[in-house]
Every structure is written in structure tokens, then in C-alpha cells.
């Protein structure tokens, strides 16, 4: 096991703390969205989209982790994200062309994010296994 002072371990610890902070705020805002569902406009819209704000911090946490971790891990993460982003884009465009009256149903835009995350994790798992 590597030392706790290894730069990659320190980077990972900072990343986890930042993600916990981002997700804590996210869930508080999400709870606020549910509790204050009867707010008048424009506050209803503000409370509805507010949970997206801590995701900006989560995104910055990922970007900082990429800068702080070692080169091989960075390559794995970026390769997996590139694969997931490319496949998600193709799926989104393909499905989007099939949407319309009498054709495919129109799901929530959030499904793109879910598809991307699942593909990213699957790609990370595959790349990690192949690197052994």
C-alpha cells in the first residue's frame, strides 16, 4: 500500500472531500426544491434549478483532481470520458432524430447525463482491467 503522503492519495482525499461538500449542498437544495414546491414564480423556477449550482463545484472538483492526480490515472479518466461522451452524443443525436409526433417518446434530458455516467464508469472499469 502506498504512503498516505503519496501525492495521488492526497489528491484523491481532496477530491472526495470536495465531492462530499458538493453533494451535501446538492441534496440540501434538492430537499428545498421538494419542501418549497408551492413557491410563487420566479422563486419556483429558481428553487427548481438551484440544485444544479453545486454540480458546478463538483465539475471543478473533477477538473482539479485531473490536474492533481498522476498521469496514468488522468489518462484513464480522460479516455473513459471521451469514449462515454462520444457514445452519448451519438445515442442522443440518433434518438433525437427519431423523436416527434407518432415516433419515439421524448424522455427527460436528464437521461443523457445518466447514460454518460453509466458509460463512463463502464469504460473506466474496462480500461482499468486492461491495464493490469
Amino acid at each position: 500500500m502506498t504512503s498516505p503522503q503519496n501525492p495521488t492519495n492526497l489528491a484523491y482525499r481532496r477530491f472526495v472531500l470536495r465531492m462530499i461538500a458538493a453533494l451535501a449542498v446538492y441534496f440540501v437544495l434538492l430537499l428545498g426544491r421538494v419542501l418549497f414546491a408551492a413557491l410563487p414564480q420566479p422563486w419556483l423556477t429558481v428553487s427548481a434549478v438551484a440544485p444544479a449550482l453545486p454540480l458546478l463545484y463538483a465539475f471543478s472538483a473533477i477538473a482539479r483532481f485531473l490536474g492533481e492526480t498522476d498521469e496514468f490515472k488522468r489518462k484513464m479518466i480522460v479516455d473513459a470520458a471521451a469514449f462515454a461522451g462520444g457514445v452519448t452524443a451519438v445515442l442522443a443525436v440518433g434518438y433525437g432524430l427519431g423523436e416527434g409526433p407518432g415516433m419515439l417518446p421524448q424522455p427527460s434530458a436528464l437521461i443523457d447525463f445518466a447514460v454518460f455516467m453509466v458509460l463512463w464508469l463502464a469504460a473506466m472499469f474496462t480500461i482499468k482491467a486492461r491495464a493490469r
Partner: protein
Amino acid sequence: MKNRIKVLRAERDFSQADLADLVGVSRQTIVALEAGKYAPSLTLAFKIARVFACTVEDVFDPASVDAAP
């Protein structure tokens, strides 16, 4: 890229984790390097060579890299 990291490490009785700490990368990176699944940056190659007190060519086999056209 072929390399002698595993041999050099064994000669010095370093574990993969020891070497990872000495050059500031994860153990996973050392595993991938030893397996020849990852070609390191120049910076990392020099750091590894410095730990073993030898040249980069002593650690990494230039002949295993395809010659540029």
C-alpha cells in the same frame, strides 16, 4: 514499451508501492508500466531512472518502440 522496472525494483528490494511513493504516482501506474501497458511521460521516465540511479535507456528499451516513419 518494454522496460526493466520489475528487475531493477527487485534488485533494490523495492515493492511497487515503495517505487510509487518515490516517484509520486499511484501503485496502479507502476503496475501498468511494468506490464508494458503504459508508456510514461519524459518527466516520469526521468524520475524512475533517477530512483534507480541509471539512465532512461537503462530502464526503458528504446528498441521496443516502433521507429517513426
